């Protein structure tokens, strides 16, 4: 999938640029953006180290296990294949907590460690194919489950909104429903693929 996304973006940009005479802009963008990406990674490196460090403290003190337990009714429902005290389930709980609190900088490193733990759970850890649990987990993160949309509220405040947080009910409703759409469509995909697989096996 990613090869088509990546390839599609490059082909579309270059072809469009040639057609409209923007070739110079695209060549500048290609050369500059990869450097900007490194700059962005340096910023990320800082927060990855900070949150990685604090997470390790929380892990050793047993704080992460407590949070994992609190969230377990929800996480066990979504990830029934994971064992109760597995590393993956704990990391997923921490990522959800950070997302709910709106700690985007913390959610990314926590989510990455959850992905790595999920990869160790699959039968062939060397595989380059996403498991259903990995996909569900990524969908939890591409949907926004932040309780308070603080960044947007700050922007609204700066632009002179009377009540910057009055969007909250609408945001929560929209987030919740679109998360349901994501999870439901993933379940449908899983079922369809499984049915297809069964069909091919019978044919053979």
């Amino acid at each position, binding site marked *: *999938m*990613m090869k088509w*996304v990546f390839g599609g*973006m*490059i082909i*579309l940009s270059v072809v*469009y640029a040639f057609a409209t005479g923007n070739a110079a802009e*695209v060549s500048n*963008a290609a050369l*500059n*953006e990869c450097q900007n990406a490194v700059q962005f990674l340096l910023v*990320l490196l800082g927060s*990855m*180290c900070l*949150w*990685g*460090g*604090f997470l*390790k*403290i*929380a892990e050793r*003190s047993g704080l992460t296990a407590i949070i994992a337990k609190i969230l377990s009714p929800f996480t066990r429902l979504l990830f029934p294949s994971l064992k109760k005290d597995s590393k993956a389930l704990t990391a997923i709980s921490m990522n959800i907590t950070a997302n709910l*609190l*709106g700690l985007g900088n913390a959610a990314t*490193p926590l989510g990455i*460690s959850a*992905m790595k733990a*999920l990869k160790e759970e699959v039968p062939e850890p060397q595989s380059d194919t*996403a498991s259903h649990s*990995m*996909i569900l*987990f990524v*969908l939890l993160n*591409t*949907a926004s489950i*932040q309780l*308070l*949309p*603080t*960044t*947007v*509220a700050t*922007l*609204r*405040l700066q*632009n*002179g909104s009377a009540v*910057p947080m009055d*969007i*909250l*009910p*609408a*945001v929560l409703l929209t987030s919740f429903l*679109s*998360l349901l*759409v*994501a999870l439901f*469509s993933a379940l449908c*995909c*899983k079922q369809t693929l499984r049915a297809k697989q069964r069909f091919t096996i019978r044919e053979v």
Partner: protein
Amino acid sequence: MLAKFGVFVIPAVLLGIVVFGLAKRINIYDAFLEGAKEGAITTFQIMPAIIAILTAIGMLKASGALAALVQLFEPVCRLIGFPAELTPLAIIRPISGSGSLAVLEQVLGDYGPDSFIGRVASVMQGSTETTFYTIAVYFGAAQITKTRYALPCALSADFAGMILSAAAVRLLM
């Protein structure tokens, strides 16, 4: 009031972790150093995926193709009852986090934060995520290249979020 809540979250979380760790007699400094080291290693692991996706997005913006996509989708948006003024935001939101914040800022400035357009834009920004970036980073970290149905599902949720944000503002505000 609630808008300022975010200022307190990070210090409170950091304080909580440190105090809890000390109470449990953990060597919190050693633990921090070890965790930070793992964080550094992970950052280098996701570097290739991030460079790939950010460069491709930069090229897409510079070529003018992104702006053309926005124009292409404008009639579709109008058809499904979604304010056409917000098409740029809807297209850019899943692709670029900083880009969508810039577009939101412009929309809030042009239409006012408490107008219908301003509110729908705020709800859309607040209830969706930077899908392409998230998928690239997370699957990149796990060295997964075959993402199967992750992207279609994520994008259908983004699409639902876009339509629902307009509906939710009409319904609730």
